[in-house]
C-alpha cells in the first residue's frame, strides 16, 4: 500500500485548524484527536520506509507544478519527526494540563509537525521555505507559550534571529531563481551541472549555509537556542531539540549542499569547522549550567556538531574524489547520530519535564535524591544519559564509534581526538545531572514528590526502549539496508539526485 505523500502535510494542517474550535469544553476530544493524528502519521512514516516516490500535486507536471519527493533521506527524517512527535504528544496529554488554552497548544503543535513534514518532503526550494516558515512561526509561538517574562524574551530573541535566517534563505532563493530560472531542486541541480557555479550562486550557497546553519543552531549561529529551548514547555523542548533543528537545519543544509550545489573542498572544511566549533563550545557551556533544561539545550548544539562533522568529512572526501565508501561511512555516522539524537534528546527533555512537574523546579541545586521518589523518570533519564554519553550498548555509542572510526580512516586523527574528548565532557555533564538530581540528599521540601504515571510514563518508556534498541539499525542486516543505507546513498550520490528524481531530464 502506498501512502499519498500529501497526507503527511494535509492531515496535521487541516486538523490544526479544526482543533481551536473545540474550545475549553472539548479539550479532551481535541487531545484525543491530536494524538490520533500524530500516531497515524507515525504509522504512515513507518509504512513509507524504503520507498522512493515523486508526487506531482494536482497532476501539474514539473517544473510547472509543485512536487513532493520521498527518498531515503526524507523517509529517515520523516521517521524521526513522527516518532518524536507521537511521543511528545502523548506526554502532552497530562503535562499540558498545567497550562491554559490547551487546544491552541495542540493546534500549534500540529502546525509545527505539518511544517517539518513539508520541509523534508518538498521537492522545490520555495515550498521548502514556506514549510520552514510554518514550522518556525509555530515554534516561535510555542516557545513563548507560558507567557512569562523570560519565555517571552526568549521567544522574541528566537524570532528575531530566526527571521534573519529566513531572510538569508529567501534572499538565496531569489538569487537562485534569478540565475537558473527555476525553483525545483532537481532542475536547479541540473542547471548548475550544465553551466557551473557563478558568483551569484556561490553567494547564494553561502547565504544558505548561514541561514540553515542558524536553524540548526551551529556555532556561531546558535545564540537563540539556549534561551528558546528551555523556555518552551517540555514536550515542545523535546520537539525543538529533538527534530526541529534537524529537519529545518541539518536536513535542508545536507539536501542543498550534497544534492543541489554539489560538494566542494571549501564547503567540506566550512562544515567541519562549524561542526567542531559547535561540539566544543556547546559541550563546555553545557557542563557549567545549573538549569536542567538549559544544560540539555547546550548539548543539542554540541550534538548537532557531531552530525555536521560527519557530513563535513563525507563532503570533503567526496570533493577530493576520495573513496566513496569512506565518505559513506562518515555520513552514516552523522545520519545515525542524527536519528539517535532525536530519540535520546527528546527523551531527556521529557524526563526534565517530568522532574519539573513533580518538584516544581529545574534548578539542579534545589534538587537531589530523587532516585527513590521518581524511579521510572530516573531509569529513563539514565538510559538517555548513557546514550548521549556514548556508553555501550546504547545507541549513541554506535553512532559515535562509527563517526570516530570514519574520521580515523579518513586520516583525521585530531578530529577523532576532539570527538572523544567532547564525548568525555558530555559524560561528565550527565554525571552532574545524576549527581544533583537523582543521587545525594533529598531536600526537605521534596519529601512528598510523586512519580508521574500514565501517558507521560508510556512516552518516556517508549523512547527509552528505542534508545536501547536503535543500535540494531546498524547491527541487524535487514534494518540497516532499509533505513540508514538509502539515506546515506542519497547524499553520496550527490548530484545524481536530479537524474534519480526526474529520469527524463
Amino acid at each position, binding site marked *: 500500500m502506498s501512502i499519498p505523500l500529501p497526507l503527511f502535510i494535509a492531515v496535521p494542517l487541516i486538523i490544526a485548524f479544526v482543533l481551536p474550535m473545540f474550545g475549553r469544553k472539548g479539550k479532551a476530544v481535541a487531545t484525543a484527536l491530536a494524538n490520533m493524528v500524530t500516531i497515524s502519521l507515525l504509522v504512515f512514516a513507518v509504512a513509507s520506509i524504503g520507498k522512493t516516490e515523486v508526487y506531482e500535486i494536482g497532476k501539474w507536471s514539473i517544473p510547472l507544478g509543485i512536487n513532493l519527493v520521498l527518498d531515503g533521506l526524507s523517509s529517515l527524517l520523516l521517521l524521526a519527526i513522527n516518532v518524536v512527535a507521537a511521543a511528545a504528544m502523548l506526554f502532552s496529554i497530562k503535562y499540558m494540563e498545567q497550562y491554559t488554552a490547551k487546544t491552541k497548544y495542540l493546534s500549534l503543535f500540529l502546525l509545527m509537525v505539518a511544517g517539518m513534514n513539508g520541509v523534508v518532503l518538498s521537492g522545490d526550494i520555495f515550498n521548502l521555505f514556506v514549510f520552514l516558515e510554518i514550522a518556525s512561526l509555530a515554534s516561535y509561538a510555542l516557545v513563548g507559550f507560558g507567557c512569562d517574562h523570560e519565555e517571552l524574551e526568549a521567544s522574541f*530573541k528566537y524570532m*528575531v*534571529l530566526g527571521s534573519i535566517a529566513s531572510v*538569508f534563505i529567501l534572499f538565496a532563493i531569489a538569487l537562485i531563481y534569478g540565475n537558473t530560472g527555476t525553483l525545483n531542486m532537481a532542475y536547479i541541480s541540473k542547471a548548475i551541472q550544465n553551466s557551473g557555479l557563478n558568483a551569484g550562486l*556561490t*553567494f547564494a550557497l*553561502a*547565504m544558505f549555509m*548561514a541561514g540553515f546553519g542558524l536553524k540548526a543552531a551551529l556555532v*556561531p*549561529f546558535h*545564540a*537563540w537556542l*539556549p*534561551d528558546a529551548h528551555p523556555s518552551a514547555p517540555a514536550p515542545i523542548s523535546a520537539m525543538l531539540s529533538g527534530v526541529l533543528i534537524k529537519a529545518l537545519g541539518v536536513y535542508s543544509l545536507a539536501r542543498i549542499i550534497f544534492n543541489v550545489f554539489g560538494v*566542494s573542498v*571549501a564547503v567540506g*572544511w*566550512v562544515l567541519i569547522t562549524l561542526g567542531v566549533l559547535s561540539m566544543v*563550545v556547546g559541550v*563546555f*557551556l553545557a*557542563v*557549567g549550567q545549573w538549569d536542567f533544561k538549559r544544560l540539555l539545550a547546550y548539548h543539542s548544539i554540541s550534538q548537532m556538531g557531531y552530525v555536521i562533522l560527519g557530513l563535513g568529512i563525507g563532503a570533503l572526501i567526496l570533493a577530493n574524489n576520495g573513496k566513496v*565508501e569512506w565518505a*559513506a*561511512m562518515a555520513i*552514516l555516522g552523522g545520519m545515525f547520530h542524527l536519528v539517535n539524537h532525536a530519540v535520546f534528546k527528546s527523551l531527556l527533555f521529557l524526563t526534565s519535564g517530568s522532574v519539573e512537574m513533580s518538584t516544581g523546579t529545574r534548578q539542579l541545586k534545589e534538587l537531589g535524591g530523587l532516585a*527513590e521518589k521518581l524511579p521510572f523518570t530516573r*531509569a529513563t533519564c539514565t538510559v538517555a544519559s*548513557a546514550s548521549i554519553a556514548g*556508553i*555501550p*550498548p546504547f545507541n549513541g*555509542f554506535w553512532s559515535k564509534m*562509527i563517526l*570516530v*572510526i570514519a574520521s*580515523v*580512516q579518513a586520516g583525521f*586523527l585530531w578530529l*577523532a*581526538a576532539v570527538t*572523544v*574528548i567532547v*564525548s*568525555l*565532557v558530555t*559524560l*561528565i555533564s550527565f*554525571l*552532574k545531572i*545524576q*549527581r544533583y538530581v537523582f*543521587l*545525594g*540528599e533529598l531536600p526537605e521540601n521534596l519529601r512528598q514528590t510523586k512519580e508521574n504515571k500514565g501517558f507521560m510514563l508510556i512516552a518516556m518508556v517508549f523512547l527509552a526502549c528505542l534508545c536501547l534498541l536503535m543500535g540494531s539499525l546498524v547491527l541487524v*542486516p535487514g534494518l*540497516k539496508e532499509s533505513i540508514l*543505507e538509502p539515506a546515506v546513498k542519497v547524499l553520496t550520490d550527490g548530484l545524481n539526485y536530479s537524474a534519480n528524481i526526474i529520469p527524463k531530464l
Partner: protein
Amino acid sequence: MKEMNILYISVFLPLIVGFLMLFLPNKIKSVSRALTFIISVVTFVLGIKIFTGGESDYILPILQLGESLGGLELELMLTVKPLGAFILMFAMGFGLLITLYSLKSVGANTKRINEYYGAILLTIGGTAGILLSDHLLFLLVFWEIVTVSLYILITTGGNKSNFAATKSFAMIGASDAAFMLGVFMIWKLSGTFVISNIDLATNSTLSIIAFLLLMTAAITKAGALPLHTWVPTSGEYAPVSAMALLPAAIDKLLGIYLLVIVVREIFDIQPGALTVVLSIIGSATIVIAVMVAMVQHNLKKLLSYHAISQVGYMILGIATCTPVGIAGGIFHMLNNAIYKCCLFLCGGAVEQASGTAELDKLGGLGNKMSITFTTCLIAALSISGIPPLNGFVSKWMIYQGVIKMGTQQTGGTAGFWPIWLTCAMFGSALTLASFVKLIHSIFLSRLPDKLKDVKEVSPFMTVPMVVLASLCVFFGVFYHVPLKLFIYPALGIEPGSAIFGTWMSGLSTILLIIGIGLGLLIWLFAKLSKNVRIVPTWTCGEVQSNESMRIPGTHFYKTVSRMSGLKQLYSGQEKGYFDPYDQGGKAGLGLTAFLKWLHSGVLPVYLTWVVLGLLIIIFVICKVQ
C-alpha cells in the same frame, strides 16, 4: 561446540541478567540476591572449566557495514589465552566470595539493592569479556561496562557517595577516552583490531603516543599515581564490599592485565625511555602512596592508599623487562588482589560490627572478633612482605627482577636500578609501619566503652575472609604451586629461567613455627611459675575513665606529617593540589566561565556573531571556488 558455549555464557549470562536486574523494582530483593549468588557460582565453575579446558575461541559477528559503507566489520572474538584464563578464574572466584559476603553485609543501609547486585553481575560479565576478548574494540566495550558498574556500585553507598561516584566515573571515563584514542591509533598503524595480530614497534611518534594512551588507561584502572585519586575518594564512601571487589581486586587484575598485554603483545617494549617512565611511575606510586597512607585516620581510606601503593610494585616488576620481574609483577597482582580484598572485607566487618571506620574510635576488638583479627593480621603481614606469606614471595621476585635488570641490561632504566630497589624496599618497610598502626588501633589498644557489645560478624562474611587468608598462607609457603600452575604458563616462561635465590620457604616456615612455639613455651612457663603478681595500675586513688586511658594509634606517625617540607606536601595533598580531577575541573570551569561571559544575552551581540559568521562563510566559499 561445547567449548564455545562456555565462553559465550560466562560473558553474556551475567551481563544480561545484571542489566535487567538494574531495572527491577526495589520490592523484589530476595530474587536478585539468590540470582546473583547462583550466577556467580556458575561463572566461577565456568572460569575453572575455561582455565582447565585449554585454548579455544568463539567468534560472533557484530557489526558488518557492507562494501558501500566502508566495509567495516567488527567481530566479537572470545579467545582463551593462558594469561587471561588464569586471571579469569581468580576474578570469578573474587566475584563469588564478594557475593557471599554481600549477602549479609549489604542490606539495611542500601536502598537500591537490586542496582547493587545488578552491578556486581555486570562487573563479573564485563571482567570475563575483557579477559577473553581478543578484539581491542570489544575489550574497550567490556572495559567501559566495568567502569559503569563501578559507578553504580559506588552510588549505592549512601547519600554522600554521589561525589565519589562522579569523580571515579569522570577519571576512569577520561582514561577510557584515552584508551579509545589509543585503540584507534593502533588500528591506523596496524590495520587490525585483533590483539594476536598486532605487533608494533615503538619507533614512531604515533606509536609512542598510542602506547602512552593505553598505559594511561591501564594505570588509571589499576590506580597508580598520578591518576589514583579516585580510589581513596571512593574508598571513603562506597560500600566496602564494592571496594573489595573492584578497586582492591578486579580493577587491579584488569589494569595490570592490560598493561602486560600492551607491553608484551601489542607493542614490543624494549628497555628504553618508555620503561624509565614505567619505573618512575611504579616507584613513585610505591613511596608516595604509602607515605600518604601512614597518616590516614580513616580505616577505609588507609586501605585505599595501600591499594594504590601496591600497584607500584606490579608496574615496577613489569618495567624491568626481565622474566623474573614480570612473573613477580603478575604474581604480586594476584597476591595483592587476595590480601587487599581480605583487608577490605575485614575492614567492612569491623565497620559493620562497630558502626565506625574512624581509627581513633576503634580499639581492643581482638578478643571480640577473633576471626576477623586473625585474618586481618595475616593479610596485613602479607601486604607488608613478611616471610613466609605470599606478599613476601612476589616482592622478593620483583626485587630480584630489579637487580637482574641492573646487572644484565644496559641503558634505559637499568642504570638507575639502585633507586628503584631502594624505593621498593623502603615502601615495604613503611607499609609494615602503617599496618602496625592499623592493627594496634583496631584490635589491640584498649576497648572503648561504646564497643563493649561488639560481636563477631556472621559466617557469610567470615568465610570469604578465612578463604582469602588461607590463600595468603598457601601461596606463600607453597609458592611453587601457583607459579608453576598459573604464572609461568601464562607468560610462556620456562620454569628454570626465572628461578630465584636460595629462599626455601619450607625450611623457614618450620623455623618460624619453632620460634613461635618456643616463645609460647616461655610465656607458658612464666605464667605457670606464679611468681608474678598482677594488680591494677596505681593511679594515686584517682579514678580514671576508660576513655582517658586509651592510646589510639592514629598519632603514631604524626611526626612524619609535621616534618618541615613534608608538612607542606601533606597539606597540599589534603587540599587536592595534586589531584588531576580537581585541577582538570578547574581548567574546564575556567573555559566554561569564559564562554559564559561571551554569551551576554544581549541580542545585538548575537546578531553581530551571525553577520560575522555569514561574512566568513561567504569569504571562504567564494574565495576558494
